[in-house]
């Protein structure tokens, strides 16, 4: 029986390398994106919910999913969700990134 994967996140049973039992401290930006998501999803704002974040992460596709780690995927998915929900637009995000890069 061959069952299609339900997305790039559907890893159970795959072949993969050894597990490295070490863990590093999270960086600030990783904690900030975690906090940001929780604010957007809180009872006051309700701009998005966890299942939408998961779906947006899965929609990144096999290649993007595989090339980025956990909070990188969150960040990329939140960008797409915020654009889809018209909270931010793509052009203003790109403009801001260019400005940030120039100013450093």
């Amino acid at each position: 029986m061959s069952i299609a994967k339900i997305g790039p996140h559907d890893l159970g049973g795959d072949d993969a390398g050894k597990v490295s039992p070490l863990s590093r401290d999270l960086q600030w930006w990783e904690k900030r994106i975690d906090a940001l998501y929780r604010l957007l999803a809180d009872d006051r704002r309700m701009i998005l919910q966890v299942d939408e974040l998961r779906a947006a992460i899965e929609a990144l596709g096999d290649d993007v999913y595989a090339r980025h780690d956990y909070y990188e995927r969150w960040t990329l998915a939140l960008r797409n969700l915020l654009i889809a929900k018209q909270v931010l637009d793509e052009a203003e995000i790109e403009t801001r990134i260019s400005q940030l890069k120039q100013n450093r």
Partner: protein
Amino acid sequence: MNHSDHPPHDHSSHDHQPPPDEGRQLSDVQYLEIALRELLIEKGVINADEIRAGVEALDAVTPAQGARVVARAWCDDQFRQRLLADGSKACIELGIDIRPTRLVVVENTDNWHNVIVCTLCSCYPRLLLGLPPDWYKSREYRSRVVREPRKVLAEFGTQLPAGVSLRVHDSTADMRYLVLPRRPANSEHLDEEQLAALVTRDSMIGVTLVQTSLVRTQAIPD
């Protein structure tokens, strides 16, 4: 409690404060994080204080919460039974409210050992254990632990005694899981607080066992 994860590639000298972004080469995704945050603040959707408070809230929850629950269950059999019957409800007795998800506590015994995973993302009992370690979120762990859990446990240095069967719990939906490890042998003289100090994060995920003999001052890869 050993909270000090000693990363192999971390060049910073401090253990508790993550490094600031300034002075470092930022990745494209890090620029994106700054852009999203700044724009949302400028539009009044969120404010900077809320982000700071959110980060502090993350830092405030550590595996010591889960360890308290485990030690109480070891010392109070009535509590243990309530915990196994309804984990969420029993945790409220200790001031820990894990709603809206529900807690299922799975108990290691002479015959059964339990391990937790979320193969689809990285669902984790955050309010009991804090944020998940890197390996819990890794492709390697999420892929392999459902198919070859004994090999994965061996990679953590864990060998189950002969005759112990293994149950993997995949957190695919609204339940969250906590492993109630076996109380280590020769721990009768320890009180609840001393017992809690023995309980590691990884033992509550089920990839290691609780031991009394660990040399706690050493940097062990937890």
